[in-house]
């Protein structure tokens, strides 16, 4: 393989990692609080608020049911507004984040709902405020499940980022299509797939390890 090819691979690997890392971070930043609101405003929970819960639920479902490739195109105006352009790696981060936010929110919601309500009740009996219940009870108790959920999100983002090539986002998936598929370079195709598999394995085992470390059940 030529040095040019190696440079291209390295650049693509960096682009994928960058897109996934930034959009993963943004989706956690927005998705975790959203998940907390979804869980705690549900019926018979600490901040019960059915109207808010239902409105958020509908928005989250709408975002989740839109296929990523369509979402990417549909929000081009928003991407332009935020990044100044609709083409490139940075531009791809916007649809990636928007697709991952509701995913994270639902994962966090279900992780928090798994926390035994008796434990929440015990904290209430000790005079804990809703904020204290969230930070000191719900999040620590659900942390292993949340970590596994975020792992799943990152892996999905690696997959989605391949589609970002369609708007010039770059990355390994884009490389595999442009060189491996369109230019019949089987070696490039193979190597990008192997790198992607390795990346997914690494993320999964790191997530598993962290979740296991935190799980005291």
């Amino acid at each position, binding site marked *: 393989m030529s040095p040019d090819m190696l440079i291209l691979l390295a650049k693509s690997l960096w682009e994928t990692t960058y897109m996934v890392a930034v959009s993963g971070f943004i989706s956690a930043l927005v998705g975790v609080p959203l998940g907390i609101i979804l869980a705690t405003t549900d019926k018979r929970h600490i901040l019960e608020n059915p109207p808010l819960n239902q409105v958020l639920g509908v928005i989250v479902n709408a975002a989740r049911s839109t296929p990523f490739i369509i979402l990417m195109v549909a929000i081009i105006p928003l991407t332009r507004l935020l990044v100044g352009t609709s083409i490139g790696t940075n531009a791809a981060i916007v649809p990636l984040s928007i697709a991952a936010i509701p995913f994270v929110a639902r994962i966090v919601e279900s992780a928090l709902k798994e926390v035994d309500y008796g434990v929440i009740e015990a904290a209430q009996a000790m005079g804990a405020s809703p904020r204290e219940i969230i930070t000191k009870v719900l999040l620590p108790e659900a*942390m292993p499940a949340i970590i596994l959920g975020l792992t799943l999100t990152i892996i999905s983002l690696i997959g989605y980022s391949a589609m970002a090539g369609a708007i010039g986002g770059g990355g390994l998936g884009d490389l595999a299509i442009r060189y491996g598929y369109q230019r019949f370079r089987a070696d490039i195709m193979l190597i990008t797939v192997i790198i992607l598999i390795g990346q997914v394995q690494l993320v999964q085992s790191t997530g598993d390890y962290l979740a296991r470390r935190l799980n005291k059940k």
Partner: protein
Amino acid sequence: MIALQKIEKTYKSSNGMVHALKGINVTIAQGEIFGIIGTSGAGKSTLIRCINMLERPTKGTVTVDGQELTALSELELREERKKIGMIFQHFNLLSSRTVYQNIAFPLELAHCSKEAIDKEVMHLLNLVGLLDKKDQYPAQLSGGQKQRVGIARALANHPKVLLCDEATSALDPQTTKSILGLLKNINREFGLTIILITHEMQVIKEICDKVAVIEGGLIIEQGTVLDVFTKPKANTTKEFISNIINHNLPDIFDDLNLSPIPTENSNLIVRLSFLGHSAEEPVISSMIRRFDIDASILHGNIDHIQTTPFGTLIVELSGEANSLEQALAYLQTRELGIEVIGYVSRHADIIS
């Protein structure tokens, strides 16, 4: 110390409105161990949750230590709750925290300093006998140990009241005994008022001073444990008590032809119940000496309600009709419970 007045609680459920509590009045004195017993669905869980307002009563007032909790805002209520400890059937410990951190939790909520927390937690660990387990996680503990952590956690803020929600129902009898012993010690040592709910009469008998029986959202009977145990009025109460003290006649009496009035040549069968000091009086032997009668004991049972002996005897008295009458009159003047079971013809073979 605690006054519940006209507590009512209604829920909306899928089957319409549920009237869980229908007007409960209970007063609990400082330092008392007060038991509330009922079958599942009787409303006892709802009732104990009303005391610290985990469930807000639909109607009525809850007053704890002079503070009317039903009149407080959420914020004020949170501060008051810190003075009321609570332990649970399923312990409800934080699985992500060690034993030490679990006990420290209420102190963190009260914004205590690290040093103050450490001092208090070490003291509590010692009190409940779990010093060697302080860095373990709840999953590594037995049920009894988990409940000890629960108790230590509930005591961390020096509460005046401890609520026990079926605290021993998930434990084996041996462990139940040790947990009850611990609660009793805490009650004596700190003068802590304890309210516990249970479906096991054994628990009430073991440590409670007073008991209330709840059924269908109403208190159907309440009083000192001794009174309720020796003179139960409601059927539900009798049923609960029969599990540990047998008030029913033994089966052998079923086949007898008992007559409510004396017949010719009949023997009298009576049930005597003794309580406390009366158990020490030689009633039967002095009766035999005074009147020309014989007495044979058909059935006997002695029990202790905490430290007070409580016994029942079923005795068959034989003699002249006249003497039997006098003996019965004599028994009725003594300090004991007496119940005429009936008259039976003299030659009936009772114990076959």
